[in-house]
């Protein structure tokens, strides 16, 4: 294939994504330094107001008061995203290892079962948990019919239900990358470790875990990034009572009409995600050298 043809073929996709994704991201960056228009959109004077608003609240007389409200929301969102990633790792690693240990046809079948939910609408997958957890939901009704409880347990609309929803949504993202790294592992290494008197735990700690690391890093990124900006789980399972950054951003463009602040938040989230990507890919490279 000639150079001209190569560029001719790649150009349409590159242009499309550049115009409709990269440029919008740049525009949001610009918007975050503008002043919000109360009808939606932004107006001329360029300021840092949107970023200042993250840490300070404007008092009635115009003076700035230090406020941790938004900082708190951001920290809580990061906390939940980290918790989601860790839980997915704890659940996903043993499952991935189990699948690797199976024969070819069973592997295929199990992988199919793990990937399938990924293609089902997240809205619907999240809603299923509303059916199970709400006051008249499956769990509460079952317990009440068994006579174990009188009043419904408050299972929905708390951090636990949000976390459950996030783990449920993202856990396949952890199983698949770990599986694909473990699948390529030379099994003689495990047998060698065994011959050198390593027990199960040591084989895991010294052989499987280091070899699975690239997959763990990939899975963690695939989960942390979307979990940080997640909207549906906090909205449907958290009841929107306590805000998370995803809902906060969305609100700035609907009810609050503060586009500059919303853009600043979006810039912050994107920067965090990209930073995580860079750091983890660099650390991973260091790790590969060490092994």
């Amino acid at each position, binding site marked *: 294939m000639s150079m001209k043809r190569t560029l001719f073929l790649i150009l349409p996709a590159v242009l499309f994504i550049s115009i409709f*994704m990269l440029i919008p991201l740049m525009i949001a960056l610009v918007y975050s330094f503008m002043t919000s228009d109360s009808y939606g959109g932004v107006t001329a004077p360029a300021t840092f107001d949107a970023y200042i608003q993250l840490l300070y609240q404007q008092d009635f007389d115009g003076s700035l008061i230090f406020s941790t409200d938004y900082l708190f929301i951001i920290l809580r969102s990061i906390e939940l995203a980290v918790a989601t990633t860790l839980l997915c790792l704890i659940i996903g690693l043993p499952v991935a290892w189990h699948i690797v240990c199976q024969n070819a046809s069973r592997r295929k079948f199990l992988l199919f079962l793990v990937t399938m939910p990924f293609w089902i609408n997240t*809205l619907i997958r999240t809603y299923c948990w509303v059916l199970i957890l709400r006051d008249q939901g499956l769990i509460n009704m079952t317990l009440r019919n068994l006579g174990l409880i009188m009043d419904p347990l408050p299972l929905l609309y708390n951090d636990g239900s949000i976390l459950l929803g996030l783990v449920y949504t993202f856990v396949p993202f952890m199983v698949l990358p770990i599986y694909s790294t473990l699948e390529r592992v030379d099994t003689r290494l495990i047998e060698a470790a065994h011959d050198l008197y390593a027990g199960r735990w040591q084989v895991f700690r010294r052989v499987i875990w280091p070899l699975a690391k690239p997959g763990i890093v990939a899975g963690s990124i695939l989960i942390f990034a979307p979990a940080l900006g997640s909207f549906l789980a906090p909205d449907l399972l958290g009841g929107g009572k306590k805000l998370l950054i995803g809902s906060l951003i969305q609100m700035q463009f609907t009810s609050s009409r503060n586009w500059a602040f919303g853009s600043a938040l*979006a810039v912050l989230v994107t920067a965090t995600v990209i930073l995580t990507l860079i750091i983890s890919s660099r650390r991973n490279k260091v790790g590969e050298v060490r092994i």
Partner: protein
Amino acid sequence: MSGGTPVQRPIQGFDWRKTPGLGVATWVFLAFLYMPLFVLVVYSFNANNLVTIWTGFSLRWFVKVLHNPDIRDAAINSLVIAVVATILSTLLATAAALALERGRNFRGFGTVNGLISLPLVVPEVVVAITTLIFFSSIGLNLGLGNLIIAHTVFCIPFAVLPIRARLKDMGGAYEEAGRDLYADEWRLFRRVTLPLIAPAIGAGGILAFVTSLDDFLISLMVSGPGTTTLPVYVYGMMRLGVTPEVNAISTLLLVLSVSLVVLALLLGRRARSRD
């Protein structure tokens, strides 16, 4: 355990392929993945007005949902968007996959590679609001057109995946044979490459279609009056409370996604069995 060396095993019966408890853990995990979906499907066949009390099997909510004109309009919108976005993104993705797998190694290859998968990395809420800002700042209002553009962008990487994988798997031998027989570039593509990657293009198209149908957040932000998509409409229903209609429409969407993905899988399998 290979080899016939009579080595004394230090721990009797150690088989690294069998870790006690892992099999059970995996099945518990799969139950965790599928049990909620199962609950939804069962509830959607419940005849009772109150979702939680089971009074008998019934299809009445499905009938009711299918006769709801708002749902029908939203479904048509979703379908139009998904079909056009699928065609556009699959065309762009096929060309891009060919360039990335068969083209010359141009400068900035890594950057282009990253750019193509950019929609996978940027959080959905950010994509949603930046797209909204973009359309409003340039004053573009094409109705469904806006949604089609937005969907095409994030469908591209999903369509690229199976096509690239197929091109990589089959290697360049067939194309070389064609070249040896003096086929020009166009005929080579038309007679050799295209038939070989056709099932993968089909699979990529279906994945793009499902991704478009499944999208909620971006559609929520970009859609306006009259361009509501089905997930956005269903979300509105969910906000009002748990009703049998929501269960029925959710089950319909679920079944649609599952059948399409199984179809994509079968297409992928057919592609591999051709070699």
